Structure formats: structure tokens, C-alpha cells
């Protein structure tokens, strides 16, 4: 499909432009920081000499624009702070260097990302499956008990802040029933079973809440879809009820679901961060919050931009998927 290839290329270019604009904006905003990172990093007796040295080492003596270009260069080619034996190497993609933690920001992010990503991706998969199938069931059993249950559940889900439900779940399943672990993270590479076992509660909590709006959406769209003429056509062709609902009905509902999912990606990351805190996992959110406390601006900027890039890229994927799913969306 050459059309699709062009569509992807054009969207990719647009995405890069958005990322550039965003990174510049973020850079300008965060370098209005009232505190001076160099002062924090210059050691106890902070003589003007040492301050100047630190400033030079951190490349804070350059103009904001120069620093920004250095930052961009770092992402593409890596960068080096200081000279000679004391030089600190930050390999590409370098999202900055945390002097308080003496680690490249990229390394810090990569150490935390698996936790946040495990929560977010697992929950998203779970809620898409649960939300769509419950919504579908509700639509097919419209007005019956199952429908009322699903609609009621969706309402409570929409109205519940995730951290609140997370804590309730810990209380009930972790403390009272003592069924599942309530905190801690085991890397997937250590033990996939323990990994999943520790994530069960966060996944279920985050998924249950987000599934709510997908139940509502799937139910409403499916009811609309099942009234369309082409559904009658499918029946008139001799398609069985299962085929009619899944192949002809649900197929049309996929497009709005994918659209909404694209819009929810940013919220997914936020939800994962709240969930991290509830279940005491040291993910990206914890890194960000502690860095704000430490006035570690390099990490704050790095984490923020990295996450934003991630969401923007994921959105690109959703956009392309949308184009693939709906033949009426012009790639031209």
C-alpha cells in the first residue's frame, strides 16, 4: 500500500516537528528555574570560583538556546560534560545528565521505565479486553440484568479515582483476604510469574476503572451499529448471529475504540504513575516526583520529554492503525 507508506511518512515528519516544538517549549519553561542547579552541585564551601567551574562543567554558562541545541545533539549523538579525566560521557540518546545522582538521565529512565510500562501496558490490554467484551455483552443483553450490572459498574468506575480504588483493593485483597502481594516489583527477567503476580492488583485496579468508559463507549456504539442496514444484510446473507455480531458489528466499533484509545494514552501514563505510588513501586513517577523535590532539573526535563515523546509516538501508531482499520479515512 504505497498510499499508506506516504501517510506514515507524512505523519512521522509532522510528529518530529511536534517533538521539536515541544522540546523547545519545555526547555524554555524549565530553564526559567529559580534555583541554580550549579549552586546545588558545587559543594559545601561554594566559592565563586567553584561555582563558575561547576557552571562550566554543566554547560550552564551557555545561552539557553545553545543549551537546547546541545540537548538535541545529545539525543542524536550523545554529549560529553567537562574535559580530560573528569569528563562525563553521556551516550546517545542522551536526555541530559543528573549531577546530583551522577548518572545519565537516559540510564535513570531506562531503569524505571519497565515498572511504569509493565503497569500501563498490562492494564491497557486488560481494560481493552474487559471493556469491549463487557460493553458488547451489555449491548446484546440490552435492558437485562447483565446490561444493568455493566452500566452500573461503568458508572462507579468512571466516578472512582484510581488511587482510592487501589487502596481499597489493597485493603480487601491484600490485607483482609491476603490473596495477592500488595507492593513491590519483580523484574520480568527475574521471574515472569512473580512479575505478573505482583502486578495483578495494579492491573486489575487500573483496568477496572478505565474499562468503565470503554464499556460505555462499546455499548453505545454497538447498539448503534446493530441498527445499521448492513447488519441486516449480513443476516440476509445467511450469516450466523455470532458472525453478524463479531465480524460485522464489532468491526465497526473498533474504529471509535481505537480513536479513543489514542486520546487516552496520555492519561494511561498518568494513571500508571498514580498506581505506582499506591502500590509503592519505584517507577517513572517516583523518579519524577523525587527529582522535583531535589531540584534536579535535568531529570525533570528528561523524564517529561521522554514520556511526552513516548505518548506522541504511541499516538502515531494509533493514527496509522486508525487509517488501516477504516478504509474511508483517506491517506491522501
Amino acid at each position, binding site marked *: 500500500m504505497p498510499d499508506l507508506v506516504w501517510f506514515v511518512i507524512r505523519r512521522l515528519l509532522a510528529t518530529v516537528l*511536534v517533538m521539536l516544538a515541544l522540546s523547545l517549549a519545555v526547555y524554555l*519553561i*524549565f530553564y*526559567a*528555574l*529559580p534555583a541554580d542547579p550549579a549552586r546545588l552541585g558545587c559543594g559545601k564551601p561554594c566559592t565563586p570560583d567553584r561555582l563558575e567551574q561547576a557552571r562550566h562543567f554543566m554547560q550552564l554558562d551557555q545561552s539557553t538556546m545553545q543549551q537546547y541545541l546541545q540537548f538535541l545533539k545529545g539525543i542524536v549523538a550523545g554529549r560529553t560534560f567537562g574535559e580530560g579525566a573528569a569528563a562525563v560521557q553521556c551516550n546517545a540518546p542522551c536526555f541530559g545528565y543528573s549531577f546530583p545522582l551522577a548518572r545519565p538521565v537516559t540510564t535513570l529512565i531506562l531503569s524505571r521505565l519497565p515498572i511504569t510500562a509493565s503497569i500501563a501496558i498490562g492494564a491497557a490490554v486488560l481494560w481493552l479486553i474487559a471493556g469491549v467484551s463487557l460493553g458488547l455483552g451489555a449491548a446484546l443483553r440490552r435492558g437485562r440484568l447483565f446490561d444493568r450490572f455493566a452500566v452500573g459498574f461503568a*458508572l*462507579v468506575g*468512571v*466516578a*472512582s*479515582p*484510581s*488511587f*482510592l480504588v487501589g*487502596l*481499597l483493593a*489493597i*485493603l480487601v485483597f*491484600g*490485607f*483482609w483476604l491476603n490473596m495477592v502481594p*500488595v*507492593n513491590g516489583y519483580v523484574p520480568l527477567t527475574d521471574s515472569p510469574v512473580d512479575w505478573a503476580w505482583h502486578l495483578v492488583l495494579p492491573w486489575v485496579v487500573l483496568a477496572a476503572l478505565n474499562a468503565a468508559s470503554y464499556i460505555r*463507549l462499546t455499548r453505545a456504539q454497538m447498539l448503534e451499529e446493530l441498527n445499521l442496514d448492513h447488519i441486516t444484510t449480513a443476516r440476509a446473507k445467511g450469516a450466523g448471529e455470532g458472525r453478524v455480531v463479531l465480524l460485522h458489528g464489532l468491526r465497526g466499533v473498533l*474504529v*471509535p475504540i481505537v*480513536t*479513543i484509545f*489514542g*486520546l*487516552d*494514552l*496520555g*492519561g494511561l*501514563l*498518568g494513571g500508571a*504513575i*498514580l498506581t505506582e*505510588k*499506591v502500590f*509503592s513501586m519505584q517507577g517513572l*513517577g517516583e523518579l*519524577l*516526583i523525587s*527529582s*522535583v523535590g531535589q*531540584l534536579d*532539573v535535568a531529570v*525533570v*526535563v528528561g*523524564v*517529561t520529554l521522554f*514520556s*511526552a515523546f513516548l*505518548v506522541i509516538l504511541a*499516538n502515531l501508531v494509533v493514527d496509522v492503525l486508525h487509517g488501516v482499520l477504516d478504509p474511508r479515512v483517506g491517506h491522501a
Partner: protein
Amino acid sequence: MGSEVVSAVSPTRQAFRRVRRDRSARLGAVLVVVLVLIAIAAPLLAKLEGQDPYTYNIGLLDPLRGNAPRGAVGGLSGDHWFGIEPLTGRDLFAIAVLGLRTSLFIAIVVTLVTTVVGTLVGISAAYFGGWYDAVVSRLLDFLFGFPSLLFMIALGIIVPAGFPRWLLLIIVLSVFGWAGLARLIRNQARSLVEREFVEAARSSGSSGWHIVTRELLPNLLGPVLVIATMAVPGIIGAEAGLSFLGVGVPPPTPSLGRSISDSIVWVYTGADPWFLAFPGAMLFLAVLGFTLLGDGVRDAFDVRLRRTH
């Protein structure tokens, strides 16, 4: 209901009638009214109870149980209607009602700000159309799908220590909240602009200002009200979330989100789950009330909010 009555009633009043007839909307409306009254009267209620949210009552804590409240139900008593906070012994009822006050105050101010900004941007985009609309729409899509919670946390680093945090919360929530409203209002306004009466007004030489204020705004009041009402629970949740993460209202100002955050350790250990129950229920009821009311108002005004393109 006689037909002559119907014809004399404006669509808005008809909508309110419908809200009153819808059972879950009525429940929502009652919840909202009660909670708003509690929020307004919170200092009075605390006084009525004879407590304030700042005084430590170390004597009511049990040092053997890690300073959890003495007595059942989190130390609930005639003096402390919701019990007390573990570790400090502060009165939980005062914290809950004043925390609700903080939450609702911030949520309502943010709703007003985002509604005004969202309406202006949404209507102008729909009215002018063309490249302006295209650019605004892209920007709105972008902002809407943005990991805003992350940014709200990150912004904390550049704000001077002396800057009032509640104002920062309002600003941050408004900056990231208006896009969602503007998107919906733009879509509503767009469908109006395409209708004939706007075209008629345009071709008869009415000024843009006239069309926007006399033709578009009155017809958008219903949808805007619906969209604003439906935005409130999200804002309450976001504010509580930020406070929960420790970047919201700073102590000692009571905050539901922060109390819930503080309760984590007491829930983990099971030492005092009641510390979660009262602020949690308060927050849940506030979000539920506005959600029910929002759904009811939407159904009553029969506004179809297209979240899809």
C-alpha cells in the same frame, strides 16, 4: 402536561424538568447540593463539632499500635465524628469537610476558567474555520492526548517556594484542562455554524460579533453547561490525584487527596483503614455526584458529545 404549557416553556426549562424526572440525575443533584453546602459551611460545621483540623490530640493515640487512634472505627466518638487522624490525632471530620471545601473550590474555579477559555477558543475555531480551525484543532488534539499529569508534577520545580500552591494548582489544572472542553465545544459549534440560520445571518450582513453573541452563544448554552458539568468530576479527581502524589495543596491545609495518600501506610498494615474510609468516601461521593448530574444534564439537553472524529 398540556401542550400549551410545553410551548410556553423554554428548552432550558424543559431540560431542567427532565433532570428532575431522571432518578439518577436527581440523586446526583442532591449529592452535589449537599456537598456544596457542606463545603461552604465547613468552618461552621467544624465549629459546631467543636474541633479544628490543626490541633494535635496525642493523648487519643495508642503508642503500642504505632500511634493509631485508640478505640473502634478510627477513634470515632461524640467529640470526633469521623474519628481522628493516626499519628497526629487531628480531627478527621474537620479535615474531611475542609478538605472537601478545598477540592470543590479548586474544581469550581478551574471549571469556570476552562469553560470560559474553552468556549472562546471552541466558538472562534468553529466560526472562523479554515486554517485557524485546523491549527487550533491540532493543538487541542495534542494537548488533550498529552501526559498532563506528568507535566503538572514537573512544573512544581520551577515555581518559587513563596508562590501559593492552590493558585498553582488552579493554573496547572486550567492550562491542561481547557483543551478537552474546547474540543467538545468546537464540535458543537461547528455543527451549528453549518446550519442554515447562521448562513442566513451571515449572508444578510450581520457582523461576526453579532452572529457569535446572538446566534451561536444562546444556542450553545445547553451544550456548554453539559460539557462544564461533565468536566467537574475529572477536575476533582485530577486535583485529588496531584495532592495524593504530594504536589498539590501543601500541609497543613486539609486536602482529601493528601489524607488518602497519608492513609496508605495505615491501609497496608491494616492498622487504621478508617483513615482511608472517611476522606475516601467524601471524594468518591463528590465525583459520583457530579458524574450523575453531568450524565443527567446531558440526557436532558439531548447533547450528543462526539468524542470520535
